[in-house]
């Protein structure tokens, strides 16, 4: 029998065997509810976690991979210094692109403070070079040392002071969310296991009657396990769907652009809420099966 045939037989069940197990009432509802609530929370938290992860990535990438070189020099020495700096940057491994800011760009940047028509060209403003590192990154300290030697007027600013707290905060949120997710799934597993135990304990007499009329262990276990697995799956599926709906309904913040993205799932992230009910089902299967076989072994 292939795995899928086995799975199908399990899901389809044996109506006769099923009936021998009493409708376990509150225990089963407890499981359904716990599965729904925990999965809902898990979906919620994983949406949060994924969003935070995206934000953290954005910040890490955008801010950490971009840095600025500011070169102060006499107007006549400026061009040479810029050229020297570009040469240093060109020979630094790990740099993806280098761009000298035009005066117009600098003016746009400064407009809020200087007003629209400041004659920057008349001022001896420093030259600015945007540096974007590639995936491998480069050695900031080494670059600083070389620049100090070859381009004395260069000040290298890798935005660390701006970036660090933001990235750290995002990382913190992300760890917190992941921790919460692990806790929620753990709590779900524990609750399903305990509820299954409670249901089995409440049905000790049923199990004993079944054993005494010649039922085999697998026959008895299967009916319980199937019920708990399917109910848990159903509960978790409801929880996941409701969770996805609520996440979708959360106020989206498209205007914030690259800085904060809307809470929700993107791309492969959708796997998470879809997978959760199956995870819950597997947890329920394992927990109930272990509990049932343990209880059965205690009976003659």
């Amino acid at each position: 029998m292939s795995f899928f045939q086995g799975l199908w037989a399990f899901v389809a069940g044996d109506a006769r065997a099923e009936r021998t197990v009493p409708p376990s009432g509150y225990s089963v509802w407890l499981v359904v509810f716990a599965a729904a609530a925990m999965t809902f929370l898990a979906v919620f938290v994983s949406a949060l976690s994924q969003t935070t992860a995206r934000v953290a990535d954005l910040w890490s990438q955008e801010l950490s991979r971009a840095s600025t070189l500011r070169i102060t020099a006499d107007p006549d020495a400026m061009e040479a210094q810029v050229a020297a700096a570009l040469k240093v940057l060109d020979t630094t491994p790990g740099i993806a692109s280098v761009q000298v800011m035009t005066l117009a760009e600098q003016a746009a940047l400064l407009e809020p403070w200087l007003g629209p028509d400041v004659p920057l060209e008349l001022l001896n403003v420093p030259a600015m070079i945007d540096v974007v590192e590639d995936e491998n990154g480069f050695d900031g300290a080494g670059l600083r040392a070389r620049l100090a030697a070859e381009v004395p007027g260069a000040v290298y600013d890798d935005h660390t002071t701006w970036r660090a707290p933001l990235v750290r905060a995002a990382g913190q949120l992300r760890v917190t969310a992941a921790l919460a997710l692990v806790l929620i799934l753990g709590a779900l597993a524990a609750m399903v296991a305990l509820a299954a135990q409670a249901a089995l304990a409440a049905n000790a007499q049923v199990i004993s009657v079944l054993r005494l009329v010649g039922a085999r262990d697998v026959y008895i276990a299967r009916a319980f396990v199937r019920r708990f697995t399917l109910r848990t799956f159903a509960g978790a599926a409801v929880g996941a769907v409701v969770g996805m709906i609520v996440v979708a309904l959360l106020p989206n913040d498209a205007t914030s652009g690259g800085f904060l993205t809307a809470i929700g799932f993107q791309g492969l992230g959708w796997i998470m809420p879809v997978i959760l009910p199956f995870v819950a089902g597997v947890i329920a299967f394992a927990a109930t099966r272990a509990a049932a076989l343990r209880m059965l072994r205690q009976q003659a």
Partner: protein
Amino acid sequence: MIELENVSFSYGGAEILSDVSLSLRPGSFHFLTGPSGAGKTTLLKLCYAALTPTQGTVRAFEAETATMDRDTLALTRRRVGVVHQDCQFLDHLTLSDNINLPLTVAGLEGDYAQNLADLMNWVGLRDQADQFPPSLSGGERQRAALARAVIMSPDVVLADEPTGNVDWEMSQRLVKLLVELNKMGKAILVCTHDLNLIRAAKALAPTRVLRLKGGKLISAGADL
């Protein structure tokens, strides 16, 4: 088919059974008496392997119960019909489903459909077929327990005080049922305090009466 060889048993404290031997052969009919608490139910439990002896061996259908694996045990139970002293049913199934339970569990439902109807008639439970066990009277439960024990026409029937709650006429009907089964070659063992019942059975078939006292199994006097 079931053999006890020099069996001793204790629940941890004093010995309940000491050096008991008994052989339930096809076509044998035993009664087991003895004061309350003597160990009759314990002896029955050893026979259907709900307990294993502290000393000696119990063999059911040639296999030793102490070393049987759980699946073999389940299959063995299908060949032994037991009426328990506290008749336990599945309260969420109707009476007829409960009586059918051994067949359901063995996957043989249907094969014995006529059996069920006849049996329910014989034990006087035709009208109660669709009731649930908690709404049955004490005697009705006992009769149902007997019906469940024999529905699969097992090779051995072990009945623990099967008539404690039924009236005299019904007791006789139940004994007649057991005698019929006995004549078909089944081995029967009945625990009872009811001496009238034993006398009635003796009139219908050759039976042996055993008495359990002080942990020993003895043959009862000829007065029974």
